[in-house]
């Protein structure tokens, strides 16, 4: 019996998704369509149809990378809600290298542009990390505000300095043909970026499970005072985790340019950075499950177009369903078999804050990790 209960709890993300889909079916009825037909069209279009599945893979790439950008800092108990901004700045850096560095052999130029994109995203994440580590300024608000700065900055760049001449609306010139990412499924848009994203998810999983870096990062999140006592720098872990997270998000933007759009468009991301938060929590902050949850959310998005054509329900219903998914996932966090993984990580945020308040402090004033953030 206990095992059955444990299994039911373990599957709570699945229940959350099902609950969201059931609520979503009411929305579809509200729009005057048959939910069964709509969902059939959606999931067939997203996962069964060859071209549809390729379209799903195209969207999986930025969603998965943006999800990893949320998962990683949460290991140390910190929220990176700046994925959206990091995506834009990453894409900007990559486009600059793609357009203005004299043409190199394809693979080298692609690698260079990708590194530039990762650096761009990392730099955009650096400021909130420094402010958090050394000034105790709320990283959530700073990353959120910086998203808007990045969005408008990229809009400025592609409607001014980098705008294609005579373009009807703001976008940059097309990148050279040699920089297009290779396709992985013949005759489709699915590009190499998704493979790289999955590889990063696997690497992150292994690092969390076995790596020293994963262990110290968890220690910092779990018990910053002990981490400090053992000679680990809490500040450095915060900064490094944000840098790597920013690099992931930057790559998400990079691959959108190199693999999918081949130009830098104004407002191209349409919320991938925020959807990354949904990916991360739906996956219970596990990089391996993040692959599945990114694939699922990407499927929702790509299947939505098929559904609109088939039964005439607006694509925006998917945004509503996605909103329902995150609401139900959040609610499901309240139901845990002993302490859920998410609860533990969130408790770490409170502990890290306490540690930052007393740099070098001894263990005597230690906040119990369970005392804040989330219920133990």
């Amino acid at each position: 019996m206990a095992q059955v209960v444990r299994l039911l709890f373990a599957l709570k993300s699945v229940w959350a998704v099902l609950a969201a889909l059931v609520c979503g079916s009411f929305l579809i009825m509200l729009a005057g369509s048959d939910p069964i037909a709509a969902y059939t069209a959606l999931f067939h279009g997203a996962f069964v149809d060859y071209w549809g599945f390729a379209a799903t893979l195209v969207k999986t790439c930025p969603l998965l990378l943006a999800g990893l950008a949320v998962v990683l800092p949460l290991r140390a108990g910190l929220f990176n809600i700046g994925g959206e901004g990091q995506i834009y700045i990453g894409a900007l850096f990559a486009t600059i290298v793609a357009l203005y560095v004299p043409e190199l052999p394809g693979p080298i130029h692609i690698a260079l542009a990708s590194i530039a994109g990762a650096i761009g995203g990392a730099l955009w994440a650096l400021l909130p990390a420094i402010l958090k580590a050394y000034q105790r300024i709320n990283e959530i608000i700073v990353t959120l505000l910086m998203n808007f700065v990045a969005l408008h900055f990229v809009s400025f760049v592609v409607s001014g300095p980098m705008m294609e001449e005579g373009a009807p609306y703001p976008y940059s010139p097309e990148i050279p043909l040699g920089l297009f990412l290779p396709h992985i499924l013949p005759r489709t848009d699915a590009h190499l970026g998704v493979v790289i994203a999955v590889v990063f998810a696997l690497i992150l999983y292994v690092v969390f499970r076995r790596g020293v870096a994963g262990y110290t990062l968890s220690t910092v999140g779990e018990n910053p005072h002990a981490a400090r006592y053992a000679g680990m720098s809490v500040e450095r872990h915060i900064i490094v985790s944000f840098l790597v997270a920013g690099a992931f998000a930057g790559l998400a933007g990079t691959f959108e340019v190199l693999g999918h759009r081949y130009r830098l468009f104004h407002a191209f991301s349409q919320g991938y950075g925020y959807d990354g938060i949904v990916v991360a929590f739906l996956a219970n902050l596990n990089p391996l499950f993040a692959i599945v949850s990114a694939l699922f959310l990407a499927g929702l998005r790509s299947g939505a177009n098929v559904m609109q054509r088939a039964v005439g329900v607006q694509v925006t219903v998917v945004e509503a369903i996605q909103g329902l998914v995150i609401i139900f996932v959040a609610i499901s966090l309240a139901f845990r078999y002993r302490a859920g993984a998410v609860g533990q990580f969130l408790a770490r945020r409170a502990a890290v804050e306490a540690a930052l308040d007393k740099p070098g402090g001894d263990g005597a004033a230690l906040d119990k990790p369970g005392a804040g953030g989330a219920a133990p």
Partner: protein
Amino acid sequence: MIDILFDLRLLTDFLSTSLRLSVPLVFAAIGGVLSERSGVFNISLEGMILAGAFGAAVGAFFLNDPFGGLLIGILFGMAAGVVLAGMGVSLGVNQIVAGIAINLFVLGITAFLSRIVFGAQANTLQLPGFRAFSLPVLSAIPIVGPVLFGQDLLVYVMFASVLAVHMFLYWTPWGLAVRAVGENPAAADSAGISVNTVRYACVIAGGAFAGMGGCYLVLSQVFLFSEHMSAGKGFIALAAVILGRWTPGGAMLACLLFGFFDALQLRLQFTYQEIPHEFFVMLPYVISILALVGLVGKPQPPAAVGRHYRREAK
């Protein structure tokens, strides 16, 4: 640029624009102050503004009356507050996660429902709204008069709200209870205050205020609903709450500062038309970040903010 300081009419216009741009921020920030003072971190102000804006549009559309819009808008803002309180206070879900979930949910559901409710006319609609009216005598004062006393109803409501929340928090026993719950819920509980009731009330009232901010956007500024029209105002308000040290008056001043810079960037757009306007649009966000960074001394949030309170774990 400097010329506006010497031209009375331009200066009045400029200050009046600053005030109008800060109104939604002030409403949201009051909501933020209330809920954070009771110990509930409220990142969902953004979603509450958007919910309020959508409610205002729906109400004004169906009831064909700005007051109907205001009512429905406030109700929608409160509904978002109920969801946040339900998750963050009763269920003990991490308040940041709950807030983010509400923001994303409201974003999606309003985008979907606005297409259903308003259909193709969504962007051409002209909803009934509030018009500016001048208070007699007071509005005759040079500069200050037209700026402060030549506005529409919601602006006066905003000033009254700031005053009311200030008086509530510092002059009444209920306000003391709210602050006690936010600082030390266990002590407040021992004193016979129901922690969860206070938090529910504050978060829902906060939702009502933030919803009014959304109402102002629709009923006084643009007279239609557009997807994601809150555009980060809730997050700027959140920064204003910190900058104003969790006091209604301080938060209002911070919002007025942000509104001033917003008006300034509009003015700069107009003056330097050769620079793409996107460059100026990001200024208010930059200023908000700079304000947080340049804050003198460490901000001291209410001690229990963001923490779920459980009696057994006292």
